[in-house]
């Protein structure tokens, strides 16, 4: 499976749109998920991507706790405590769903059968290293869940995050300072200010939102490439 075509032939600077809201960001991620994909949206913010997937795209959602064909969050009478997603939130079942146990569910993940997973992150390095499970701070309780399994298992690992933390520190970095979830696993980085492709050739800016490549380059300690040769 190849991921959707990249935006045009050159990096697009969208100066007419400010930094993306979480919901707008989720829509951009959704746009890039190919029709017919099998997708895991992890927990938290990435689950918002589901709301932007076209109903007719044939995209099937996997949840690590043993289900393919997961539907939207359950409401009211639909709530069934035996039917939850990876974040333990009650969800629904779509036609064509299936259930399986945890060893089978993670065999599916580890075995490279999922086309795309979307994860949050503390940091992503220019080599695609992912840090999203543990701050490493003294007293912090480590908890990994299925993050490492997704990081090494999905064919395409997309990350969704803000590009800078609240204090302005970049989260796209030369080298992660937080403990790694997986080395060289992120292929796409979706942020409020820009979308990046990460690969052996380095970090390529695909799109910017409310900013320019030049401005990003001045705020990041990472070499940025562009598409279309400028």
């Amino acid at each position: 499976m190849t991921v959707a075509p990249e935006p045009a032939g050159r990096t697009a600077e969208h100066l007419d749109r400010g930094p993306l809201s979480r919901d707008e960001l989720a829509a951009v991620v959704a746009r890039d998920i190919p029709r017919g994909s099998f997708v895991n949206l992890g927990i938290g913010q990435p689950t918002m991507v589901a709301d932007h997937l076209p109903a007719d795209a044939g995209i099937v959602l996997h949840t690590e706790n043993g289900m393919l064909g997961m539907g939207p969050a359950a409401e009211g009478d639909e709530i069934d405590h035996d039917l939850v997603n990876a974040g333990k939130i009650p969800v629904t079942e779509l036609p064509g769903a299936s259930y399986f146990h945890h060893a089978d569910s993670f065999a599916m993940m580890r075995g490279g059968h999922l086309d795309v997973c979307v994860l949050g992150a503390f940091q992503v390095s220019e080599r695609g290293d992912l840090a999203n499970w543990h701050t490493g701070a003294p007293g912090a309780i480590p908890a990994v869940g299925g993050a490492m399994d997704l990081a090494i298992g999905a064919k395409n690992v997309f990350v969704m995050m803000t590009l800078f933390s609240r204090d302005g520190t970049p989260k796209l970095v030369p080298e992660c300072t937080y403990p790694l979830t997986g080395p060289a696993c992120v292929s796409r980085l979706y942020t409020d200010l820009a979308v990046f492709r990460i690969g052996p050739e380095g970090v390529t800016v695909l799109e910017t939102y409310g900013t320019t490549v030049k401005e990003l380059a001045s705020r990041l300690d990472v070499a940025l490439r562009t598409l279309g040769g400028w």
Partner: protein
Amino acid sequence: MTAVFGDADEAVAGIADGSTVLIGGFGMAGMPVQLIDALIRQGATDLTVVSNNAGNGDTGLAALLAAGRVRKVICSFPRQSDSWVFDGLYLAGKIELEVVPQGTLAERMRAAGAGIGAFYCPTGVGTPLAENKETRTIDGRDYVLEYPIKGDVALVGAHIGDRMGNLVYRKTARNFGPVMATAATLTIAQVGRVVETGELDPETVVTPCIYVDRILDLSEAEAAR
């Protein structure tokens, strides 16, 4: 042969101090709450608990932890919004924690049940969770060597059982139950109800009876109150 109980205390009789106890469930889905409550009353202590989480709120696994019966937790995700019991014990240095990636946790128990001595797993390579573990490059990819996790006891929540011990589950409450049932010396399942042998469709049995030693019939337990 599988024994069917209507009384939770009888169902957990004989669990020894120092046991490794595999506890099913993902959050509350599939959590064998009545068996855990009975285990608290039964009194076994110095336990190692293997479960995906480390307890939610004040009931079930959290209550077992609060009762001081657990020496060590092996899990993938202890920290949750309502894991205050575990958090307190951990930060006070009163409980050991081994964090294992969720899929590796499941696979290590599968290995125990399937007679596999160890396996090379790609998950966690290059992270702190692979530190001090043996690694190997196979066909250009790096793997870490992982060993089985075997339980003395498994406590599992299922949907329906038959008198022989065959089990079916319901939706995502299936989660760790079928794997843990294979990985323990003594598997105890709580089920919503027990049906006569032959009532479950053989094509749809998820845990074959060979893996189930005792069944707690919650409908009977309820009726007996």
